[in-house]
């Protein structure tokens, strides 16, 4: 499945715990989370809402600090956000006051890339996401799917070693979502990009991931890491839903996240 990649840890969570207070009550968002993600992996993290998967992504991005435990990037503790770990958000986080090219080139601008080079790179990305002719449009003039393509391209532009995606397609209509997923996997596989993809959709997690991190809710814990057979970079939804192996994985992950799995998570719950 992932044997082609060098097994080199790029992100690690060690005994992560995250608590916060809401209406005077202490809520444990993450508990005993241990996870190692290797360079080149496409990892999907799936769980019901409230399982702390977004919190986990924010901690890896450096936008949140765990209550205890450690989050490491390339072996070093993560302190604050950096361009090494780009993030795509669920909410449309492209800037409304920047055009398509202005948004996509923003990271390159911050990195100080010369204008001519930047324009060339942005033009490439615009072609890649199929937004030719929309270069000078503002996000309010685009559809939700187009906007989210811009958000992905903006993060991709600087080629960060890690890209974290927090339910990026949740706000997109179901049909557009299928296309975006197929495009994403092609892009990620051809560029060998490390991606941590957060989702609450089991099918999405199975379709995209090299392996799936299944999480429970309140407190958010890693239940099991489920590997997925490699379906190739040109995988389509039609092909996936016909494969009996995929079907088995989907039902297994469903059992896990709904808390109905027999073994081995039952033991863990009672432990």
């Amino acid at each position, binding site marked *: 499945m992932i044997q082609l990649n060098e097994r080199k840890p790029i992100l690690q969570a060690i005994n992560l715990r995250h608590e916060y207070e809401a209406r005077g009550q202490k809520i444990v968002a993450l508990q005993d989370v241990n996870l190692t993600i290797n360079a080149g992996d496409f990892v999907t993290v799936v769980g019901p809402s409230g399982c702390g998967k977004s919190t986990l992504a924010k901690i890896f991005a450096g936008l949140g600090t765990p209550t205890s435990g450690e989050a490491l990037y390339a072996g070093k503790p993560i302190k604050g956000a950096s361009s090494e770990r780009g993030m795509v958000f669920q909410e449309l986080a492209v800037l409304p006051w920047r055009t398509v090219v202005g948004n996509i080139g923003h*990271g390159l601008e911050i990195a100080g890339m010369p204008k001519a080079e930047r324009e060339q790179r942005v033009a490439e990305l615009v072609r890649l996401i199929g937004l030719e002719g929309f270069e000078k449009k503002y996000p309010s003039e685009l559809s939700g799917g187009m906007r989210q393509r811009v958000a992905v391209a903006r993060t991709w532009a600087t080629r960060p070693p890690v890209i974290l995606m927090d339910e990026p397609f949740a706000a997109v209509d179901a049909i557009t979502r299928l296309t975006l997923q197929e495009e994403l996997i092609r892009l990620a596989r051809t560029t060998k990009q490390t991606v941590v993809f957060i989702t609450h959709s089991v099918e999405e997690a199975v379709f995209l991931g090299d392996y799936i991190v299944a999480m429970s809710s309140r407190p958010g814990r890693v239940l099991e890491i489920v590997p997925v057979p490699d379906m190739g970079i040109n995988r389509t939804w039609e092909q996936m839903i016909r494969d009996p192996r995929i079907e088995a994985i989907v039902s297994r992950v469903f059992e896990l996240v709904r808390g109905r799995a027999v073994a081995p998570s039952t033991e863990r719950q009672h432990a």
Partner: protein
Amino acid sequence: MVAILLLALFWWALTNVFGVPEYIFPSLSSVAAALWEALLSGRLLDDTRISIIRLLLGAVVGIVSGIALGFLVGLSRTARIAVEPLINAFSGIAGIAWIPLALAWFGTGLAMSTFVIWNGMFFVVFANTILGVSRVPPTYAQAIFTLGGDRREVLRSVILPGALPDILTGVRVGLAFAWRSLIAAELMGSPMGLGQWVNEAATYQRTDRILAGCLTIAVLGVLLEALMVSWIARRTVVRWGTVAVAEERKAR
């Protein structure tokens, strides 16, 4: 447009049909004549020029200080705790109450009018800037941090344009307050200016000139708002779609 025509018609009817006497409500034609006379004598232009200089100076100081302090308080908890109660306390005091003191402090020159206009304008720009800063979605800033941006970059490319719709609202409302403050300051003791023109007209019971002065102020107010706010809004927040304009809302 229709509203203006209706108002003019009503005015014409008031004096020409219902026969309200000139000294109570002068007719459209006598106000026009007063305006024409003032224009020919050069008085109108001189007074307008000095009023606009005073207004612009006060407005620039009011806008710049309101936005700067608004950002400071909107972004820093420490600043909020330190200065917000004080500013709130002062914002309740009517601008006109300061004029006698301002006259004592600054005399009748530009410093006095600048202070009075600043006082009329600052609080509303300040409050709206804070509101604007607080309404910028935090994910915008987080996204820029993960692109490698620092706090300065976030301020420049996220907070400032994100707060602009509310800042422009503050400036729009503030400009109206600025005009009122200016005219009050001129009425109460500045040499020259449209307020003083109105004041002199009142002394001689020239109601036609009072109305001519008020009309001039109204027209200037509309022009200045169009230049300083609407022009900027059309090229920024309206174009970006971060505020909906009335026509678009109707279409939806």
